[in-house]
């Protein structure tokens, strides 16, 4: 069995290392595509599903639901992938044969159950927020992303980005939020 030369750790992924991101993507790609082939979707669809499964996996690493690699990354990806494949088959109105019944998946469901699989549409408010978030300066976007997406505390942000004190980070965050609110209100004066 082929083993990774140096183990990619959860920390590498969580730090946002692009190198780790790419290596994990490449290392599991062929395994996944080989596994997905049995469901008779096109290669393009399988690649699209692999990417979506990878995104969900990564998201769950970031939000802390995957706290340690107790299983191989492939196992997580297969678990999510299987769910997405069934969704895609339903969407394509392909009959899901009983031989592919989700109940057969068994214990792999543990991965599926804990993760958020469905991507909800943004509400009109959120669409507006997204537009104005994208218009903020790079520093603001980064700071808010570290806090709301990467789960950094104020202290983590201070250390990671060389701020002088926690108060400086707090003040910067408040300013960013204020700007965001003001821009949304200016766009939507009611």
């Amino acid at each position, binding site marked *: *069995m*082929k083993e990774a030369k140096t183990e990619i750790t959860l920390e590498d992924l969580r730090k946002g290392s*692009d190198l780790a*991101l*790419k290596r994990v*993507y*490449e290392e599991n*790609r062929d*395994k996944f595509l*080989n*596994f997905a*082939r*049995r469901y*008779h979707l096109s290669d393009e669809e399988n*690649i699209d599903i692999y*990417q*979506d499964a*990878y*995104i969900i996996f*990564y*998201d769950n690493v*970031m939000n*802390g639901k995957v706290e340690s690699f*107790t*299983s*191989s990354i*492939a*196992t*997580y990806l*297969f*678990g999510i992938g299987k769910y997405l494949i069934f969704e895609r088959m339903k969407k394509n109105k392909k009959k899901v044969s009983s*031989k*592919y019944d989700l109940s*057969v*998946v*068994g*214990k*792999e469901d*543990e*991965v599926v159950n804990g993760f958020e699989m469905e*991507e909800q549409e*943004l*509400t009109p*408010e*959120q669409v507006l*927020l*997204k537009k104005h*978030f*994208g218009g903020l300066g790079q520093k603001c976007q980064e700071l*808010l*992303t570290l*806090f*709301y*997406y990467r*789960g950094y*505390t*104020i202290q983590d942000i201070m250390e990671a980005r060389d701020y002088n004190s926690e108060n400086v980070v707090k003040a910067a965050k408040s300013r960013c*939020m204020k700007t*965001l*609110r003001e821009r949304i209100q200016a766009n939507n004066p009611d």
Partner: protein
Amino acid sequence: MDKELLLYQYFANQLTEDGQKIFNELLQNDPDFKSQFEFEKNLKRVINKKQKENLKQKLIGFEKEINSNDHNFDSKSSFKLWSMAASLALLIALGWIAYNTLSGPDYDALYASNFETYPNTVYTITRSDGNQSLTRDAFAAYEANHHEKAIAAFLDLRTKGELAHVDFYLAQSYLNTGKNKEAIAALKSVILNDKEFKAEAHWYLALAYLKSKDEVNAKATLKNLVENFDYKKEKAQTLLKALD
């Protein structure tokens, strides 16, 4: 308590039990607090969405790189490759004829170049498995390549009536420890009883026959695989040609 601090603690996952109570009360009774909370919650959702979109773009980029590497390899060095391949094919053909007249195919080499242990795709090892500890032990040993230990645990599972996919993984561990006869028996059972791994079981059964130098059964199983399933179809066809 400071409302700002409560919101901060909520989004930093640091709310205490008491804090959570106050937080819930404020959410019900304080419209300003609720509106601030909704705003931050929406922001979190929006940032998440944006990150996912960025990630998708990156993955599409990786995919393009993979394809263009293949393509570059194809076009740039195609002539050189063809000439090399032609010489190599001639050499191999000559060697093959000479070798075949003296002996049969090198089953061990064919086996080694085709066998790869199937990854654990059925059991997620988590820390809180409780009563399923035997299944956990089996797959933990399997993932760690401790196949003797995995065999013992899989056999134990089988006697306890846990049949789902056990035979398939048991066969993998048998193949990894050179127990071909046992692997063949387990794989036959998979083909009969486990629809989900039927195609895969054919492939590994063919390899197990190959390892046992049973060319007739190896070829029959490969033909069966090629005719009825998609799994490893191309590899099976190549292997069939090599055996002919």
